[in-house]
Structure formats: structure tokens, C-alpha cells
């Protein structure tokens, strides 16, 4: 069993608190992504799990045993580093087999395992090369090979794709996802890239300033963000967030943005108060049909800016003075200055308290 349980974990350097009291429960075999902006503590957390940093407080359990006092070598984890961390003075084969030799494994078994790992990653022909002769993508595969050859309880990834160019990154992302499907081992993956987080994770743990802001499945965080921070972090282009007021009228609850009233399909709890309205581009589409769909309302817009991306176009307009992005079809020939009717899907809108920035 290789579930990872973290309770009350903190890590501070002098007066700087990198990680402040984290509780995390990762079941066996799950792919967990720690994501967040620079300095949020995700790498520190990962390194503490690996044993490269010592926890200041709290416990780390791997497979039911508390590992706080265990050296990295004794925790049966493997780590893939951002700069690959291959041993330059050893061939690829010796790099991969390094951990096995440290366990005094017989040479034949080491060779067999190295060959198998190389075959899985498609790097068999590179086994006699040195790291300096390899490309970035190849080096990263070797690094992954070094990790899988030991079949550890937990895989740790520290921003492994950050040094690769965009195309390679997409490729490697798929490979890592497929790897997880094949070997079904617990994986903890650190990244600052929200696309990696969304596509790879079974569970996303979004961190901020040493604490967990929200954790859950990718769709959960995406559709029901618990704060404006989460809402703004995931999704590209970003969710548009506008200040307004939650009001109750005779016709039902509305969000008032300046002069505009946007009716809400459901009444959120609490009294009338200032709120922040969050709308993703996909919630704002060109009006179809005579009347807006259930839960949507229709507004008039003057297009300010069009940004085509090939598969779709994003049109920026103003809603009560605030810039908002709507998603249009790619072939929708709208030009700046044009007037358009936009259906706003208020059923999917996110509403946050203006003071706490947390979802209502």
C-alpha cells in the first residue's frame, strides 16, 4: 500500500514559513498535482516528502509508516527533477541502474531491469550514450527511467517539463499520463502550469502562500472554484471577474453591475451585499434563437477587441464598464466596433463575496 498521508506539515526557514500546516490524504495509485504560483510552497512540500528537507512540524506517512525520520534512500520513493539531474560521468545505462546498484542487486538483474525500463521509454538505443549527447526530451526520459526501474511506492515529479519547449512538453505530458495508467503507482507532481495540472491530475491541490487553497478533481476546481484565486488560476483565457452587488428584487435574485441587472437562476444564501461575479469566456456566447436559454440572460455588447486562436475567437467587450471576454466561433466574422447580442449563462457563473473573495 502506498498511500501518502500528510498531517499538519510545516516547514520554515528561519522566519520564512514556506509550508504552513498542510493536511493531505492521497490514496494509493492516485495522480496528485501540486500546483500554484512561485513561492507557494509546492516544491518545498514535495522535497519534504522526499526527505530532502526536514519537516519543521507535522507528520508524513507513506504506506502507513511515518517516514519523518527516514533518510531519502530509505523511503522507497523516486524523484524526477526539473533539470533531469542525470550523472554526467555515467552512461545512460549506468544512470538508470544507479539506484539498483546501490541496493547491491546482482548485475544480471540490474541489466534486465535497465533494459526493461529503457524499452518502456523507447530509449534502448541510447543506453551507451552519455547525458551530454542527449536532447532535453531524451534526458527527461532517462530521468523517468531511473525512477521507474526501482518500482518505488511513490513517484515524485518536480516540475519535470519546465525546461522543455512547448511541443516536447505536450508529448511528454501524454507519456507521463500513459505511464501512470500503466503502472498505477501513487504519483505526486509539482508544476506551475495549470494545463499540466488539469490534464494530468486525478486530484489537483492548489497551493498559495504555504497553504492549500483548494483541492479536488480538476473539473471540481474549474467549475466550482472556492475563491477568486482558484478561479483566476485555472482556465485560459482567465475567468473575467467583475465587482457588483447581490440584490433581491421582486423578480428574484439579481447581480447588479452598474446599470445592468443580471438575473440569477438560484438564490444564493445571505443578504444583499457587494460581490464579485466570475464568468468564463465559454459562458458568454453569441445569442442564439429568439430568447436566451434557461438560466441565461441576454445583453447587448459592443466588441472592443477580437483575438482569434484558430479553433475559436475571443471577443472582449464591456459589461457595466468592466472588460469581459466572450467565446465566439472561429468563423464568426465580427469586427471591433460591431454590436452583438451575447447570452450570459448565469447558471454557470461563479459568485464570490467581495470582501473575502470566497465563493458564495
Amino acid at each position: 500500500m502506498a498511500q501518502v498521508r500528510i498531517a499538519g506539515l510545516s516547514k520554515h526557514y528561519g522566519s520564512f514559513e514556506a509550508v504552513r500546516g498542510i493536511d493531505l490524504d492521497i490514496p494509493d495509485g492516485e495522480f496528485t498535482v501540486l500546483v500554484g504560483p512561485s513561492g507557494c510552497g509546492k516544491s518545498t512540500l514535495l522535497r519534504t516528502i522526499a526527505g530532502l528537507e526536514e519537516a519543521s512540524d507535522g507528520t508524513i506517512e507513506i504506506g502507513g509508516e511515518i517516514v519523518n525520520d527516514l533518510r531519502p534512500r530509505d523511503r522507497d520513493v523516486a524523484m524526477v527533477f526539473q533539470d533531469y539531474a542525470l550523472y554526467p560521468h555515467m552512461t545512460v545505462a549506468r544512470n538508470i541502474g544507479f539506484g539498483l546498484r546501490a541496493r547491491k542487486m546482482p548485475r544480471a538483474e540490474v541489466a534486465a531491469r535497465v533494459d526493461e525500463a529503457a524499452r518502456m521509454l523507447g530509449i534502448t538505443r541510447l543506453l551507451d550514450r552519455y547525458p551530454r549527447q542527449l536532447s532535453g526530451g531524451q534526458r527527461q526520459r532517462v530521468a523517468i527511467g531511473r525512477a521507474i526501474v526501482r518500482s518505488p511506492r511513490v513517484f515524485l515529479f518536480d516540475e519535470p517539463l519546465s525546461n522543455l519547449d512547448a511541443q516536447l512538453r505536450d508529448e511528454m505530458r501524454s507519456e507521463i499520463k500513459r505511464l501512470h495508467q500503466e503502472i498505477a503507482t501513487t504519483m505526486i507532481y509539482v508544476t506551475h502550469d495549470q494545463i499540466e495540472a488539469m490534464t494530468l491530475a486525478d486530484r489537483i491541490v492548489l497551493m498559495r502562500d504555504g497553504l492549500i487553497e483548494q483541492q479536488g478533481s480538476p473539473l471540481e476546481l474549474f467549475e466550482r472554484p472556492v475563491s477568486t484565486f482558484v478561479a483566476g488560476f485555472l482556465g485560459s483565457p482567465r475567468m473575467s471577474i467583475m465587482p457588483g452587488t447581490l440584490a433581491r428584487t421582486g423578480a428574484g435574485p439579481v447581480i447588479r453591475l452598474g446599470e445592468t441587472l443580471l438575473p440569477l437562476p438560484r438564490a444564493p444564501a445571505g443578504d444583499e451585499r457587494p460581490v464579485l461575479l466570475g464568468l468564463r469566456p465559454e459562458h458568454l456566447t453569441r445569442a442564439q434563437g429568439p430568447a436566451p436559454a434557461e438560466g441565461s440572460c441576454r445583453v447587448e455588447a459592443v466588441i472592443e477587441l477580437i483575438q482569434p486562436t484558430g479553433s475559436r475567437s475571443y471577443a472582449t467587450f464591456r459589461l457595466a464598464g468592466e472588460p469581459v471576454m466572450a467565446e465566439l466561433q472561429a468563423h464568426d466574422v465580427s469586427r471591433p466596433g460591431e454590436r452583438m447580442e451575447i447570452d450570459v449563462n448565469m447558471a454557470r457563473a461563479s459568485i464570490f463575496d467581495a470582501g473575502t473573495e470566497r465563493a458564495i
Partner: protein
Amino acid sequence: MTDTPIAPLRAAGAPPRLSALAAWSDRNFKWLMVAPAVALILALSVYPLLFSLVVSFINYDFLIPGHAFVGFDNFERVIADPVARWSLVLTVFLSGTSVAIEFVLGLFVALAMVRSFRGRGLIMSILIVPLFISPVIVGQAWTLLLQRPFGPTNYILSQLLGHEVTISWLTESPWLYISLIVADVWQWTPFMFVILLAGLTAIPPNLYEAAELDGVGAWQAFRAITLPHLGPMMLLALTFRLLDAIRLFDTIFIMTGGGPGTQTYTASYYLYTVGFTQFHLSQATAGSWLFLIVTALVVVALVRRLLRVEPV
């Protein structure tokens, strides 16, 4: 990647358990690593220093029996000795002059060597040669050049200047000071040159390009770009060289033997004579402690500053 499962890759498990000794040495790894060096420095540097401090307060003299405590006697004797005072003055003068000349020459050579040109590597290799020669040999080499009647210096000068030159370069004042300074400059200018060159090459060239586009002249570019960037490096070079220069001994020993009389006694040479030719050991240690204190003040001030400044 293929679709076949990784049947042969079973869990590798944990590495062999560490013995108690191995575990202990792993826990205390960082201390164990510094221990041998620290022990050696304690034994052969700190302990001798403390020992010499004790010696300077007692009577330790090969010619006078007993080790009686004499308080500050030894210190007073050193301070009262006119040769001691002279040696300090001479040390400051010689080291100051030498280092200044080395600095200026080194800067010029560094400026001349910044741009890449054909043969630069070879010239570099030749110019740094003096750094790897024993100072005794440097002294020996210059003695061979300068010593009358053997050295060709007087002959060459006579030819160049048109009239006969009969300077005794190693015994006649003020020429003998010039000889000592020349020998020191010969050996250590490359030190300055190498460090300043490193500093110069670290200055991004696009600063100069921008200046040229702006119409800034060569001298102004030097003042506005080169000097500020070179500042820390110049300080480093001067500090290191000065701290070495005040110990001047080897070349004195070979070239003039401190003479004639005590005219070329540097501080180190003076202390050497007191301790090892006159065998007034406690007086010598007292004197060396005084010298140490003077040096220490300079070291602490400059080295602390260097440590903080350098983003090593």
C-alpha cells in the same frame, strides 16, 4: 512507450540497512567533513599562535637561561628598538610603492589584453610566468642581472645613456630600494593584470556599444563604465596583494641580506634576525605579535568587506 505491463520490474525495496557507525557518520556528516581540516589548523596555527603569545610574555632566549615571566618587557624592547621602527617604515614604503606600480602597470596591460587578437593566448601564457616562480629565484635572477661586476645592467645602461654607469644596485642607496621594488613588480604585476583582466572581461560589451552610439568619448566611457564595474575587483586585487606584500622576506634575503647594515630590513626580516640570528626568541615573538595585530586589523576590515560583497 509500449502497452505491455512492467512484469519484470518488481519493487526494488530498501537499500541495505546502515550499521550504527555508518548511520552515525551520516547524521554528523557535515561536521566530520570539516573536522580534519579544522583539527590541523588548530594544531598548527591556533596553538602555535597562543604558544607564541605566552612566549612573548616570558623570557625565552637561547642565550639566557630560565623562562621567567617578564610582563611587557619584550614588547617594550621591540618598540624601543630603532631598527624595528625603521623596518616598519620600510615595509610600508616598499609594499606601498610596489603595489601601486603593480596596480597601474597591471591595469594598462589588462586594458591592452582585453580585446581578442592573434597570439593573445601565447602572450598571456608568457606574461603569467613570473607568478609561478619562487620569490627566492626571482631575487636570484635579479641579483644576477644587477650585481656588480657580473650583471649586465650597468653595461646596458651605459650604452643607452651614453656615459658610464657604475651604480652598485644592491648596496647603494637609493638604488637598492629601486632594485627591490623592480624585482617585486616583475613578479607580481601579472597578479594584478590577471585579476583586472577578469574584471574587465566581465563587463558586458553592449554597455560600450550603447555609449558609442550615444557619442561618448573613450575617456568618458572609461570613467563611466569601466571604473565603476571594475571597482570591486580593484579592491580585491589591492587587498590581496597588499596583505602579501607586507610580508616581504624572500627577495630581501637573497638580494641584499637586509643590508647594507640594516638598510633593507623589512618587518619580517627584522623579526627573523632577532629570533634566529640573535636568538632573542621571546623578543621576536613579541614583535611578531605586534606585527600580527597590525595585519589583523587590516585583514578584518578588508576581508570581512570582501566576504560580504562577493556573490560567490
